[in-house]
């Protein structure tokens, strides 16, 4: 068993180290939080933090896939997708427990389709992902206004709110179990399925992947579609988290979703990284923000410290190759 695990552990050495580093940072941040403000690491507080992190974790999973697929993959439309997902979900279920499943399906289908449009633009029209998803973000913004006519509507069903906010077993809300299962699935998919290996292959060397028979375009379209869907799922859960919807609800997740991926050790150049790092990255980000809030630092100080920390993290993870080798 241990031999098998040894063999299946993959990824570059520095990447494994960076994972350890990230875990260490999480522990340090919790310790720091507890020292600065006793009660920071109390169970209830920890769970609340993890719930917040899980929301980020779901979007970041999709972002993770797109970035791993290379060719400057990035999805800037996730903010809009989350808002849209929350809106669709809220309107379909409209506070009715019975409509939760249809709402979920409608949300996932809608955002999957829009994400696929991103993918089609990127692969067939060869629009850089940054531009395509930025444009898509603008379109979704417009779509949101058309749907709501400027007046946000739709409420979460009580069961959904409970799933996100209230303890299920052992004082832990259902969403955390869902996140754990979801993250485990993504990790497994990346490591142990043909699809996962294809993602790494197109991210590491698209040419070689094509010659090995990988359907480059289909795979990449699927990545963007999945990213849209993950964002939609996040929107669905955000609805449960906050009970109702406002139009820009998803915007705050856009850049953090990218950052969680990067500080989790995934290279923006594609082909390097995994999902466990992203999970840790999401937790780090939320912790950091929470510590800054706890310390009663005003928003300006929080922004500066947050940005400064990111820069510091770039020092460890985000450095590009030298020109002189």
């Amino acid at each position, binding site marked *: 068993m241990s031999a*098998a695990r040894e*063999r*299946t*552990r*993959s*990824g*570059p*050495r520095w990447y494994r180290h960076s994972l350890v580093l990230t875990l260490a940072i999480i522990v340090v941040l919790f310790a720091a939080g507890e020292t600065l403000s006793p009660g920071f690491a109390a169970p209830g507080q920890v769970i609340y933090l993890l719930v917040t992190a899980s929301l980020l974790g779901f979007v970041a999973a999709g972002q993770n896939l797109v970035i791993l697929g290379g060719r400057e993959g990035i999805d800037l439309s996730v903010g809009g997708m989350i808002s849209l997902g929350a809106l669709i979900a809220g309107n379909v279920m409209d506070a009715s427990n019975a409509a939760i499943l249809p709402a979920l399906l409608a949300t996932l289908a809608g955002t999957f389709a829009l994400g696929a449009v991103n993918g089609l633009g990127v692969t067939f029209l060869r629009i850089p992902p940054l531009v395509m998803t930025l444009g898509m973000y603008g379109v979704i913004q417009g779509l949101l206004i058309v749907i709501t006519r400027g007046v946000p509507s739709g409420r979460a069903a009580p069961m959904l709110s409970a799933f996100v906010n209230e303890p299920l077993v052992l004082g832990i809300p259902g969403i955390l179990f869902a996140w754990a299962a979801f993250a485990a699935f993504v990790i497994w998919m990346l490591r*142990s*399925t*043909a*699809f996962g*290996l*294809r993602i*790494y*292959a197109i991210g*590491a*060397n698209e*040419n*070689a*992947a*094509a*010659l*090995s*028979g*990988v*359907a480059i375009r289909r795979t990449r379209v699927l990545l963007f579609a999945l990213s849209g869907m993950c964002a939609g799922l996040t929107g669905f859960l955000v609805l449960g988290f906050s009970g109702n919807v406002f139009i820009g609800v998803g915007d705050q997740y856009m850049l953090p979703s990218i950052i969680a991926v990067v500080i989790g050790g995934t*290279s923006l150049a594609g*082909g*390097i990284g995994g999902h466990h790092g992203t999970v840790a990255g999401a937790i780090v980000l939320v912790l950091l923000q929470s510590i800054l809030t706890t310390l009663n630092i005003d928003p300006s100080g929080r922004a500066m410290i947050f940005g400064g920390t990111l820069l510091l993290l770039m020092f460890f993870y985000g450095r590009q190759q030298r*020109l*002189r*080798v």
Partner: protein
Amino acid sequence: MTVLEAADVHKRFGGVVALAGANLELAAGEVHVLIGANGCGKSTLCKIITGSVFADRGTIRLDGRAMRFRTPSEAARAGVGVFYQELSLIPQLTVAENLFLRRPPRSRAGLVDRRRLRREASRALERFAGAIGDIGPDHLVADLSADQRQVVEILKVLVDEPRVILFDEPTAALDNRQVEVFFDLVDALRREGRSIIFISHRMDEVFRIGDRVTVFRNGESVATMHIADTDKDEVVEKMLGTRIEAVERRRDAPKAADVAMRAEAIGGTHFDDVSFDLRRGEILGLGGLHGQGQSSLLRALFGADNAFSGSVAVGGEVYRPRGPRDAIRAGVAYVSGDRGRDGVFPVRPVFENFVAALLTRRRRARLDRRALSAEVGAVGDRLKLRAASLDALISELSGGNQQKVVIGRWLVNEPRILLLDDPTKGIDLNTKSDLYRILDELCMEGVSVVFYSSEERELLANADRIAVFNGGRVVDLLEGERVSELNLYRAAFAAEGH
């Protein structure tokens, strides 16, 4: 008098040892040839001298003083110019802008004087007048053909009037007339007292223009000789270490009856009207000078380029791949010698590099890592692969072992037909002989191989028959007794209209 000296230079890239004790002395006013097999570190040495690669160990002296250029711009200012094998042109800019990139002519106001820029560029281009077609200073480099780009890169080096010039395979894509012009230029430079390092694989060029020659082998400089005191055989012997022996044939030439692949009058981007029968268990060599359509044919047969015209049958059935996937599922495999571009997934483990094509052949969603590892491990052993583990990054392996993994990717697929596109480019002799052995075994198992190599000896030693290419067509098919170096050369150079 020694102008430039490199002493005991070492350099590794991950697992690849590029230089392991290279020495070089360039005298004033000489043309000094560097020669050695692909991948033996010639380009790396040039880049170390000009500061775009930093050495792990060793010293570079210019005029007797130890120098360590940190950037090519420092080297340029010290009067060292370099022609890069992979070129250093900016495709989006014009020819004129590229020529004077570092020091464009300026008006009194300090702005770029575009009129003079174009005029001086035209004047520079005139040196190759009549030999490079209709290109002017305003053409975008993106629009130029490979030989035109090389000419522009040559002129770009000369614009700076460097004292020491490193030409890293400047003639690779040039035709005879362009080479003549270039050699006239080199002669003139030598007369002006400039010192030149010249890298080329073409033996006649070496003896035509060089004063001295230094031979490289596996990252080491093994000998420096005066051109006048040596001959081609000696140089080749030094390059290879020993005279290569033909591999011992353990099989008989296959019988004509069993045809694995039949091509009838197929044509494509750089080849036309090619027909052949590939027999079961044979190695069909593709010969001829570099770039006569052999690679294009192989890529087209694998479905990697545009579709071909004409008809191909594999195992008696019509074969018309729309992409590599169709080819793979029909039991066809393709190994490219350009492993950086077509082969390795550089940041991924050996395991993933092995199974990439297998995933296409066996349509199964879940990977059984353990079963696959066993399968892959067996192929690795057969190839005598040396890797720390299947989880090691492929970039940590040596170049030869990386290529073994790429070849292994196709062997695990158990192909019926193996297309080899110069697969031994830039790998060491041991790896080569391992590959030859495997080919032999595969043929005995009934696999058919189409083998293109840029090294004639490799073809002669391994192929059962050789189809010689010239200008995209098969000009001769050498069989039996006729498989010989003489016939190969004769057909390759016949009626060279290029």
